[in-house]
């Protein structure tokens, strides 16, 4: 069964086409990643699907309801973690969740039990009487995630859940997302961290400039992009012309004394390297082979440099 069906969804802001006729489906219980650089249209897509912005064109159904005509029914069945943590600074964690649970019409009898469970699940129980603004960034993010779950939603929308978090908080949040997957929630998450998409998502849509370039499982994306094993070599000096000549026909990136070579026959390449390096009187300082990552596939599929993805908002 499909939890989310999107057909030709489009958003114009004046002349700018922020989201350009995107189509995809998300199955129930799936973790679906929306991967793209800043300004790709990720937030705009989430805002349309969650009833915060009207689509210019196209249609979509979330939990079986039309996002424009049956917005309230959609809103009842989803939880949203917006890009910016926006609970109420002046209220405590508990008061915030209690307020949200009223907004979502959680029956009074269940309210406190559910909030208690969520706070324990998210390790926020000891902070329940702390005002939201006193929480660290990581804890704020967790509290917002907890708030998105008070109505026990079928589908969760997470907009860049780990952006701006330190490594430890980000990892703990990813762990929580995995637990939620285990609880059978359908999760639509956006990210500009390629690794995160690789780790968390069953399927990934790569979106650039409002258009979806590819949708598949991370494994299939790597296969599709045809990325091979990669040998990373550091030499004692710049690689000599003779070496580059021998590597012709292979995909080679040179950066100073570093070489990155894509190959489907690492053994032969290795032999050739050792031979050629020895002949030109250089030394091999380090040698590393790695299997292709989603980042390699991403670069192949989009033609973008990974630097573009590392660029944070406003930097």
């Amino acid at each position, binding site marked *: 069964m499909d939890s989310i069906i999107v057909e030709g969804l489009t958003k114009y802001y004046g002349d700018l086409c922020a989201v350009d006729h995107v189509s995809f489906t998300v199955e129930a219980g799936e973790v679906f990643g929306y991967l793209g650089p800043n300004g790709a249209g990720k937030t705009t897509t989430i805002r349309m699907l969650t009833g915060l912005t009207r689509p210019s064109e196209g249609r979509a159904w979330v939990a079986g309801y039309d996002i424009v005509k049956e917005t309230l029914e959609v809103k009842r069945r989803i939880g*949203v973690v*917006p890009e910016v943590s926006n609970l*109420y600074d002046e209220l405590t964690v508990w008061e915030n969740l209690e307020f949200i649970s*009223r*907004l979502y019409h959680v029956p009074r009898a269940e309210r406190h039990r559910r909030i208690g469970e969520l706070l324990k699940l998210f390790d926020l129980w000891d902070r329940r009487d702390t005002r939201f603004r006193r929480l660290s960034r990581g804890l704020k993010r967790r509290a917002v995630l907890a708030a998105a779950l008070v109505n026990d939603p079928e589908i969760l929308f997470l907009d860049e859940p780990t952006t701006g978090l330190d490594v430890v908080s980000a990892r703990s949040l990813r762990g929580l997302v995995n637990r939620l997957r285990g609880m059978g929630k359908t999760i639509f998450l956006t990210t500009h961290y390629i690794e995160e998409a690789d780790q968390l998502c069953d399927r990934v849509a790569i979106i650039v400039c409002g258009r979806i370039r590819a949708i598949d499982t991370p494994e299939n994306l790597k296969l599709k992009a045809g990325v091979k094993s990669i040998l990373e070599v550091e030499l004692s000096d710049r690689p000599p012309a003779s070496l580059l000549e021998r590597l012709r026909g292979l995909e080679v990136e040179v950066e100073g004394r570093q070489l990155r070579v894509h190959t489907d026959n690492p053994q032969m390449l290795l032999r050739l390297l050792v031979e050629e390096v020895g002949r030109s009187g250089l030394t091999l300082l380090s040698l590393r082979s790695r299997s292709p990552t989603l980042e390699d596939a991403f670069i192949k599929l989009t033609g973008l440099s990974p630097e573009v993805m590392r660029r944070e908002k406003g930097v």
Partner: protein
Amino acid sequence: MRLRDELEGIYAILLKDLKAYYLKPPNISWGILFPIVLALAFTLRNPRGLRDLAPGLVAMAALFGTTSMEAIVVTFEKRVGALERLYMAPLTYTSILLAKVLGGAVFGGFISAVMTLLCVTLLGMHISHPLLYVGGLALSLIALSSLGALIAFSVREVFEAQTLSNYFRFPMIFLCGVFIPVGSLPLPLRVVAYMLPLTYTVELLRASTLSPSTCPLLDLAILTLFSAVFLLLTHRAMGRAYG
């Protein structure tokens, strides 16, 4: 069922706003001090004509009480993204709007109540028609709070809301019969006065504290109309945010 959900939502937002903003100690003390200062200022200047002025003072308290804090609350929440929390919830815009308007009205009601108390105890105001007084004041609070909401939802920044509110507030104080009876204004200004809601508030409060001079039913009807128009326009402004 649906209606109960909406009412529950309105109640939750109202309670949250009161707790998070309106009932903070600085606002409570402002709510008490503002009427006292206002009443004192006029007592010192003109100790005799005060009984006449009392309904105008209450109207002014209602005006400032409803519009000042409400505009700050709405524009502040808009800026920090907390207003979007409400849009994310399964609630109609109508309910969100009503909750915000009620918040302003409750706070304005509190300040008007303090002012009423001062006017009755210190200035000798006599409420001869309590039902009309309370009803007229309540309706005025809704109308003025709806005007405040219209302003707050139409602008982006806190200061814009303040500036725009003042464009309405100061003319109202001088034109709507707070100090100068509307009847003694030159005709063009009188026309403007009858296009402003506060005029009807003052008329109603006068009618319920002195002997009714105009038909209070007409005032009540006009204030209801004002409320409806302001609410509809605000609803449209909220719809524009949806895009």
